[in-house]
């Protein structure tokens, strides 16, 4: 039992003084001392450790020492302490039992007959939810507005085949793509693709003997690349995680290949993955070449990092 404030202090021989203060240990959070003052103690209050207690009953602290020994206990020095209001000690209240009984305030008159407090609490939450719920869908639609844009199937002129001198060598074609985003004025964006004048074996590897169909979001065929058409264009986006890859001579392999500097995926001229983490070959795009040699492509984009080709632009 913890000693209480205002408790009487009974020494071995007689009763002297009362508990004027209680001192707590900040780490154990238990009462470590009481301060005894008042009747018979004199002007100097004394600090008495709990180890000197005989017992604590109700409103009396029993000490082992006789009242004549009071001078042996150290004098209480107020400046060596702060009140519990001025210090932050976790869970102090849980360990504290020194208040002289309960301290009460009355419940307001109007509240006394309210039996269904839980009901009203739940009702408050329900009304809150009812206010928020109708907003969910509009907010979702609001933020989703630009997320699923229709595919762009425009043909873009990107250069002339006379730039390509050698077979099976990747040639980069840079071009400007007009992009209209939301409220922004239509803007030119720099893009690039790689074009290969493929030799028959490479062409065979790319097309595997079949024409290549390109589809719209509805599944409708937009264009077909003929399997014997020698020019192959690859999307400039690495199928691994969407970086831009390069045509590079790799000393280790002794030949030129497509290399992505991000995660070091390597592709041969037919787009096949030779090494590195890429999940699928390079993505061929729709290509057509005019009689003048002008190249036109549809700049499709596929989701990176997945095995299947999933068109997103």
């Amino acid at each position: 039992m913890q000693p209480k404030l205002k408790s009487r202090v009974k020494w071995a021989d007689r009763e002297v003084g009362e508990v004027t203060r209680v001192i707590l240990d900040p780490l154990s959070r238990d009462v470590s001392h009481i301060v005894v003052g008042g009747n018979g103690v004199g002007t100097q209050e004394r600090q008495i450790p709990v180890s000197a207690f005989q017992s604590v009953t109700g409103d009396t602290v029993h000490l082992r020492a006789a009242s004549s020994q009071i001078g042996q206990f150290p004098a209480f020095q107020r400046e060596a302490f702060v009140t519990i209001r001025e210090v932050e000690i976790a869970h102090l209240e849980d360990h504290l039992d020194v208040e002289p009984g309960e301290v009460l305030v009355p419940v307001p008159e109007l509240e006394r007959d309210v039996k269904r407090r839980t009901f009203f609490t739940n009702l408050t939450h329900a009304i809150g939810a009812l206010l928020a719920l109708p907003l969910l869908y509009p907010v979702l639609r609001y933020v989703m507005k630009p997320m699923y844009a229709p595919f762009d199937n425009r043909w873009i002129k990107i250069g002339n085949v006379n730039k390509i001198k050698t077979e099976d060598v990747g040639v980069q074609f840079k071009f400007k793509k007009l992009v209209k985003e939301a409220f922004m004025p239509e803007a030119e964006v720099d893009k690039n693709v790689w074009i290969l004048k493929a030799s028959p074996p490479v062409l065979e590897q790319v097309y595997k003997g079949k024409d290549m169909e390109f589809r719209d979001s509805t599944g409708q065929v937009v264009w077909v690349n003929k399997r014997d058409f020698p020019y192959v264009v690859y999307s400039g986006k690495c199928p691994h995680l969407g970086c831009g890859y390069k045509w590079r001579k790799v000393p280790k392999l002794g030949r030129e290949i497509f290399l992505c500097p991000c995660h070091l995926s390597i592709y041969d001229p037919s787009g096949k993955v030779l090494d590195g983490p890429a999940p699928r070959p390079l993505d061929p795009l729709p290509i057509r070449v005019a009689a003048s040699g002008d190249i036109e492509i549809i700049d499709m984009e596929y989701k990176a990092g997945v095995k299947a080709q999933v068109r997103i632009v």
Partner: protein
Amino acid sequence: MNSQPSALEKIIAFVDERVGLKTIQAKMLNEPVPGGSRWAYVFGSCLLFIFIMQAVTGVLLMFYYVPSADHAYASTQYILHEVDYGWFILSYHFWGSSAMVVMVFAHMSQVFLWGAYKKPREMVWLIGLALFGLVMAFGFTGYLLPWDQRAYWATTVGVEIMDKTPVVGDFIARFLKGGPTPGQMTLSRFFVIHVMILPAALMGLAGLHLFLFRKAGPAGPFRGTPEELKAKTDYFFPRQVWKDIVAMGAVFVTICSLAFIEPVVLLEEATPDPGDYHPEPEWYFLFLFQMLRLKIFSGEFGQFVAGVAIPNAFLLFLAALPFIDRNPERNIFKRPIALVGWLIVMTGILVFTVSAIINREFLD
């Protein structure tokens, strides 16, 4: 002595009576630190300091920065080259973000090694993990804002990695990009996340973190008898506050020095054509970047494992840690699995980061 209170004292008394300032101040400063103040306890305060400075410099940057695809780059260059001390404010903000990440690792390591995540501090640890996620999200979203090639490509790859999350990945990636490919909508979204959503979330959670920390009380050292701890115990103020201030000063001087020595230099303006640039994320994501290069993480499933499953499993493991490791023993030298585990994780991150840096040579 003059017993009449001065005008200033009267004003202070007036405010104190209504606000209770003195009690609040006393409560803030009078927190017993079991076993006494230590340099090992400075990291949390340093994080708070770095965050405040990031908020201040961030607000200053917004005086000139325009979050639009056609002005972001130009306005950032304007801050760097035209605005008086703009280079310093921007470079401070840039290096401050790195300092934040370093300090988060230090803070988490300290808490881990001291066993301070254990009962009754599980919630402090959980909220701390959420804060760690926010700090990484700050780094990731802030990186795009200058709209140079570095920014564009780090974001492109980063979002593609999130795209690999099962079921919701595609939605998350499109939501962040504001479309199928990065562009104006991406910049707008990253901007609002970086300057509004994340700061609000961080302030709220950091407040909760501190509140829960104060509620549970500091853990103190992992060695020593109660008597020894009691003998050495002091209040948060002044000894710990002093150590914190010195550490904050050191952090401040370090960030300023880095801003002076290595001010921010932008690359070319962002375009979907990388040119000669070899995309790379900020250094604290390099280990993840390097991990994705490994052959064992190739293919669709491999990427999911390295990019999504491993990082998230690790975070989940950290979240579950206080509930798995219920042994009250806090001494790190008596927790061999914890010590070895920590060493392995740190070494792993270091090795992957260094090998990513070495790999740069191979590319040039």
